């Protein structure tokens, strides 16, 4: 037992300056040894990639490597902002992320409110189990489900609607761009609603039952109790999650886009992740793709930082 002969035995160490430092090190060296492994991982696989960002400021060709490339300053960025493809991808990304936020943010809250009000405990437990499931499925599976249900001629929903005589021809849920946009957004809502509700349900368990009792004694209806007790009780959580989501406005999910993509909806499907993949890895234009990735990361980082500031300003404790 290495620490046994350490003086003093109290975890709060005494001594000053060098002596204190030595004592700390003698006591805690194992903590630093443990930290070596995760630090090695982030340095080898994350930090070591940052120098590659200089490609965004170079005229880089994969065949020539760094040595054969020249510095071009901000030329790449100037070029990108005149590139119609990039502008379209940027516009689409921001539009769809914004729609994701508007459509997707309130649903888990509403679902959590409903689950919180649900009276039948066994049914509640079972339904939670079922509602969390889509979160654990990949985008391929989710898109496959969408194809099985929404295809114009063989999709379950279209068959049912046709048989019921409600429609003549199948609705092009996946092949007409506006229908596609709705399907694309709603599938994500469907995937996330159950899982997203957990955090609100957790916040709701923190609300004192006395508040509900007091509201009931005052004759408050169910809706009024939700409005005046439950919602204020989860306000902090809502603010935190809203800010976190705002930080993702420049994000782009390649798996989701490629799983749902097809030639008919390319106009909307062409978002930043698609741009980066097609121009960069597939097209060999490494400098452009790196520059776009850098813009994404930089804006995302700024958004998270300001969100953190903002949350701390509101007294919500911050995110980082």
């Amino acid at each position, binding site marked *: 037992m290495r*620490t046994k002969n350490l003086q003093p035995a109290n975890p709060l160490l005494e001594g000053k300056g060098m002596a204190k430092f030595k004592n700390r090190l003698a006591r805690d060296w194992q903590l630093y040894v443990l930290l070596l492994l995760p630090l090695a991982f982030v340095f080898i696989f994350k930090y070591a990639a940052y120098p590659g960002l200089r490609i965004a400021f170079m005229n880089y060709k994969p065949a020539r490597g760094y040595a054969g490339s020249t510095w071009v300053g901000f030329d790449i960025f100037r070029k990108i902002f005149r590139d119609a493809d990039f502008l379209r991808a940027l516009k689409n990304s921001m539009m769809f992320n914004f729609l994701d936020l508007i459509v997707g943010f309130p649903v888990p809250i509403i679902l959590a409110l409903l689950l919180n009000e649900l009276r039948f405990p066994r049914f509640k437990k079972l339904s939670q189990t079922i509602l969390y499931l889509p979160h654990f499925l990949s985008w391929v599976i989710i898109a496959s489900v969408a194809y099985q249900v929404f295809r114009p001629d063989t999709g379950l929903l279209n068959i049912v609607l046709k048989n019921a005589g409600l429609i003549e021809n199948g609705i092009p849920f996946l092949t007409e761009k506006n229908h596609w946009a709705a399907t694309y957004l709603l599938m994500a809502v469907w995937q996330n609603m159950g899982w997203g509700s957990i955090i609100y349900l957790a916040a709701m368990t923190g609300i004192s039952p006395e508040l509900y009792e007091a509201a009931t004694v005052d004759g408050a209806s169910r809706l009024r109790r939700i409005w005046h007790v439950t919602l204020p009780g989860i306000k902090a959580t809502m603010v935190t999650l809203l800010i976190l989501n705002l930080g993702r406005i420049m994000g782009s999910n390649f798996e989701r886009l490629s799983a749902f993509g097809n030639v008919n909806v390319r106009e909307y499907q062409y978002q930043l992740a698609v741009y980066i993949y097609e121009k960069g890895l597939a097209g060999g234009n490494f400098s452009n793709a790196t520059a776009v990735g850098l813009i994404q990361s930089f804006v995302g980082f700024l958004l998270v930082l300001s969100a953190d500031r903002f949350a701390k300003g509101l007294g919500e404790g911050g995110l980082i």
Partner: protein
Amino acid sequence: MSSIYSKAEKPRQGGLNRVRVSDVIIAIIILILCATCILPFLHIASKSISSNTAVLAKSVYLLPKQVNFDAYASIFRDGQLTYSMGYSIVVTLLFTLIGMVVTICAAYPLSRSLLKGRRVFSLIILFTLYFNAGIIPEYLLFKQLGLINTMWVLILPLSFSPYNMLIMRTYLESTIPESLYEAAYLDGASHFQMLSRVTLPLSKPILATLSLFYAVGRWNAYADARYFITRKALQPIQYLLSNMVLSSGADAISLAEGAAVTSTPEVLQAATVMFATLPILLIYPFIQKHFVKGVMVGAVKG
């Protein structure tokens, strides 16, 4: 389990215990939402074991017609998907194991307030969560490291998730009282011993939860396979699936000639989707009860 479910169990209404109209409406809404999560899979499962004629006649809804397992038989004969499933299981297990070891090595020291430099180490690790180098610099790095077109490119780069580390750190900080560590310290325990005898036995819920997160994350991801792997034998099942089921036209499903496929693409596609979803559908109900609590404690402050 208790806290999340307990509220509804004690009637909030004093003595008023009868079921009201609004209760029924809420139950119906929840029921419909649950149906949207179950019915599609029921439909696909039924399709996958129905006859070609029934599927082509569009008469299969939620129950199979003229049950047969031809589509599954051709999947097994073809062998591509079964091989890929085995490979993906190996990758997922290694990924989860490495991820958990590294996460524990980070979360335990960073959860101890006595650690000097705690904030700096946290910042170094968490910065990578908020600032991504992007695909191209990563691609060039992995090429330098010799990872491109190996199984390890699916395992090493993503196996340590700072986000999961954050969840575990928060969990440790809020559930393990400092007094336990002090007692262990006075008994002469080293940090390694505190970790193995105090921390880990007390953090089983979060260990189970994070293992699940790592495993599911790896199992479902395939963008990195598209970016960094061109050899077919090294591609995980989800990537294969995306090629088979989705590839642009949404009806281009292909097994090898030798598989002697007798099913229509429609049935085969349903069987393929079920085959790849089955592992998750089978494991999920058993682990479901473990993760909710772990997520809640870790995430509320996260």
